């Protein structure tokens, strides 16, 4: 989301065309919208909730699934990821993701806001509603939590065998070269104001051809001041592509490149504490309300809808996985149920503010069932060792969600449709067209992240090496990497 400042920079870049259109700007400055404190309150707590998802949520969800000798290594990798990424976010991450880029703006932003330059307690960021803004710091905090959790998701794929030093290097590289660009491509746009103002100028121009042409240029410029996938029209309410597919494919690449754990398939690698995994899954659920409903950027009916959707899609997916497991194995497991819940959370992420509750239940059922098949059958068939099913849950769940979002966002299927800021109404919805656009965005993410991640793994391998020795792996990474043990009962 760009803010008023962006609007101004845009203005500069288009100075010639703007001559006729600038009349509106002083007025805009005069009655610049101020944040509603209800929105601010909601964005602040949503940010806290997303941190809760990551630490301790995700850390425990993952940590419970490894053997106790690797518990601390997982906790540490997740905690470290949050720390290093949040500092990077302030230093340049926010800037390259959410400011206008110079040169490759459809791919990556610029450095004009490095170190949050120019942001004050009075700066605001636009939301998806024209004239509704939130404090820019709140927006920065909220988006920071997204940048933190995404690479943390990846570590599950190569858990129990990657050296801490490798993770320590991988995360900053990955977030810089994979996450920031993808987030920019999917989420960066000029914001409602630039478009509404420009659209109004076009209308106001009336029969005056010169004025109209100029105004249309401004409008086109505003529309094209956005990331590549955004320009395609891809929709992703809270990060199905940016977060889950992105991390999921990176995880798969890691699992493939790094190879299986010592003893994989021979020794028991039973989770050391499903209690921790359950706590983690529950906190993911609770925190995900901040993630999904917070992505409305307002404390609105849409946020409430996103919350209901996030609730029931998760529930439906948990039930679907449980049922499938009951049918196939005869006993439904807690791990299955919470895995299903996470799959549902992943899948409803892009749809949360677009689909209706009934549509979300269907999305959940589909995700629960498909991810179950993937984790319990497909994976075994291929035989790679994605330790904690990052690919099977996040990438597959993310793809299911991205595509079904196109289906259940359709107003005819109870969805909210897509808002057209130029026309100031919900746009006509062509379902298959949207499905294709979603597929395109998915493909972009799979390719960018897949290829980017492979390169980064290679680089890390060359610099510090990826894998622990067999002896270290047997002894456990907690002792080997950190000189501690998780438990001394």
């Amino acid at each position: 989301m760009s803010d008023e400042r962006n609007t101004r920079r845009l203005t500069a870049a288009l100075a010639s065309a703007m001559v006729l259109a600038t009349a509106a700007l002083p007025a805009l400055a005069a009655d610049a919208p101020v944040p509603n404190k209800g929105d601010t309150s909601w964005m602040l707590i949503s940010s806290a909730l997303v941190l809760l998802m990551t630490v301790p949520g995700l850390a425990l969800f993952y940590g419970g699934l490894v053997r106790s000798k690797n518990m601390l290594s997982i906790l540490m990798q997740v905690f470290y990821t949050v720390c290093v990424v949040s500092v990077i976010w302030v230093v340049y991450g926010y800037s390259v993701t959410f400011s206008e880029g110079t040169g490759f703006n459809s791919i990556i932003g610029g450095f004009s806001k490095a170190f949050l330059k120019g942001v004050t307690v009075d700066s605001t960021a636009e939301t998806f509603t024209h004239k509704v803004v939130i404090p820019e710091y709140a927006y920065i905090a909220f988006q920071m939590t997204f940048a933190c959790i995404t690479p943390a998701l990846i570590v599950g794929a190569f858990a129990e065998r990657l050296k801490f030093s490798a993770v320590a290097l991988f995360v900053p590289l990955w977030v810089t070269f994979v996450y920031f660009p993808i987030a920019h491509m999917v989420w960066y746009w000029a914001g409602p104001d630039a478009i509404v103002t420009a659209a109004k100028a076009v209308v106001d121009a009336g029969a005056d051809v010169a004025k109209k042409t100029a105004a249309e240029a401004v409008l086109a410029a505003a529309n094209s001041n956005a990331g590549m996938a955004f320009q395609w029209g891809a929709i992703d309410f809270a990060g199905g592509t940016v977060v889950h597919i992105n991390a999921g494919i990176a995880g798969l690449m890691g699992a493939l490149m790094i190879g299986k754990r010592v003893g994989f398939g021979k020794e028991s690698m039973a989770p050391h504490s499903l209690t921790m995994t359950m706590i983690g899954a529950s906190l993911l659920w609770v925190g995900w309300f901040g993630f999904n409903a917070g992505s409305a950027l307002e404390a609105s009916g849409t946020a409430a809808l996103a919350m209901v959707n996030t609730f029931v899609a998760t529930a439906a997916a948990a039930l679907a996985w449980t049922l499938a497991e009951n049918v196939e194995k005869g006993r439904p497991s807690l791990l299955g149920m919470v895995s299903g819940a996470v799959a549902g959370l992943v899948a409803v992420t892009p749809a949360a503010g677009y689909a209706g509750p009934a549509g979300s239940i269907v999305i959940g059922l589909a995700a629960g069932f498909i991810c179950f098949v993937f984790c319990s059958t497909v994976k075994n068939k291929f035989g790679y060792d994605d330790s904690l099913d990052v690919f099977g849950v996040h990438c597959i769940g993310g793809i299911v969600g991205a595509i079904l979002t196109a289906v259940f966002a359709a107003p005819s299927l109870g969805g909210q449709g897509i808002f057209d800021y130029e026309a100031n109404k919900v746009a006509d919805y062509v379902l298959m067209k949207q499905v294709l656009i979603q597929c395109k965005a998915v493909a972009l993410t799979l390719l960018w992240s897949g290829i980017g991640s492979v390169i980064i793994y290679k680089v890390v391998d060359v610099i510090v090496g990826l894998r622990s020795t067999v002896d270290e792996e047997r002894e456990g990474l907690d002792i080997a990497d950190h000189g501690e043990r998780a438990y001394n009962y």
Partner: protein
Amino acid sequence: MKLVTAIIKPFKLEEVRQALTDLGLQGMTVSEVKGYGRQKGHTEIYRGAEYAVNFLPKVKIEVAVSSGDVSRAVEAIVAAAKTGQIGDGKIFVTSIEHSVRIRTGETDDTALS
């Protein structure tokens, strides 16, 4: 002196302890162990991974007794630990050559309890 080692089902521990106490055998050492035998284990499934768990939780009781008490001790344990179901466990009797009570330095039979 003999060491009577019994491997029993965990929930029988309290009854066995009582039975031995009733005999006047007021000392024993207990450990949690896992047993493998005729009693079959179970299968655990964690997402895609299936593990056959062959070892079952058991409790190992070690009681040092003077040679004269052995058969009474063994009988008491059998009586208390028996359910008649497979997996009830085993008793092994071995010989102790020497024993010491650390607190007092007493040795052999007087050290036992």
